[in-house]
């Protein structure tokens, strides 16, 4: 099953070839556990966010989860030449826009800023879904189509709605 999926999406699944050496197998286990830890930190962070005393820590906890999730992705990456550049450039530009935007906005305009960030996140989801669908050519397998279309619809609605807000 895994090999069938991976032959259809080689860019993501290049890290999961059918014959894994013991070391590679251990790495994939560590990565999976790291993602699990990230998810746990997100949930715990949200729990902390529900009380005034722990709220600020909750934000940091969730941010730590995000860092772990991103770190766990690094071993999975197989860059093409352009891929490395756009990833690096994109990360830098995004960080700049996010930090500057979040710091410079007036306190009264913060809800709009949050809506804007939410919208672009949804837009990103839609774009990723489109890019992944394109990799499959004319007849993508249903398992890929369903979440992709879901993402595209929700992402685009989120993006458009946030622009209006």
């Amino acid at each position: 099953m895994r090999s069938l999926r991976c032959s259809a999406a080689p860019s993501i699944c290049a890290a999961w070839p059918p014959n894994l050496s013991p070391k590679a197998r251990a790495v994939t286990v560590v990565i999976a556990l790291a993602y699990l830890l990230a998810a746990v930190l997100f949930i715990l962070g949200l729990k902390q966010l529900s009380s005034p005393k722990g709220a600020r820590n909750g934000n940091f906890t969730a941010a730590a989860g995000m860092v772990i999730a991103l770190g766990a992705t690094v071993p999975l990456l197989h860059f093409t030449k352009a891929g490395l550049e756009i990833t690096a450039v994109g990360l830098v530009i995004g960080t700049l826009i996010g930090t500057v935007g979040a710091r410079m906005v007036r306190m009264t305009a913060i809800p709009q800023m949050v809506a804007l960030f939410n919208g672009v996140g949804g837009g990103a989801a839609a774009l990723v879904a489109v890019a992944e669908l394109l990799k499959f050519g004319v007849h993508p397998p249903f398992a890929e189509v369903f979440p992709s279309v879901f993402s595209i619809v929700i992402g685009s609605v989120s993006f458009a709605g946030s622009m209006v807000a």
Partner: protein
Amino acid sequence: MTNELLNELTFFVLAIFVGFEVISKVPTILHTPLMSGTNAIHGIILVGAILSAAGADSPVTVVLGLVAVILATTNVVGGFVVTDRMLEMFKGRQAAKK
């Protein structure tokens, strides 16, 4: 293939329940920071964007990947920074909306 989809569906359904429970009984004053925090978390799409952008091979996927990474990073970084700004006001006791 279908097995994979079923696993993902299971996670999805369970996650819905977790999400519901975690955000219930939140004091009104924390509603906006909570919204902002959960928004920052949904920037996890950045993982997907990076995975997609890293393997970009055609002009279309390069453009899509670049824009997706920019947007997703903005969501993540901006989301956490703006949430922190809101929560700076909360030093122990509720500081109320000023």
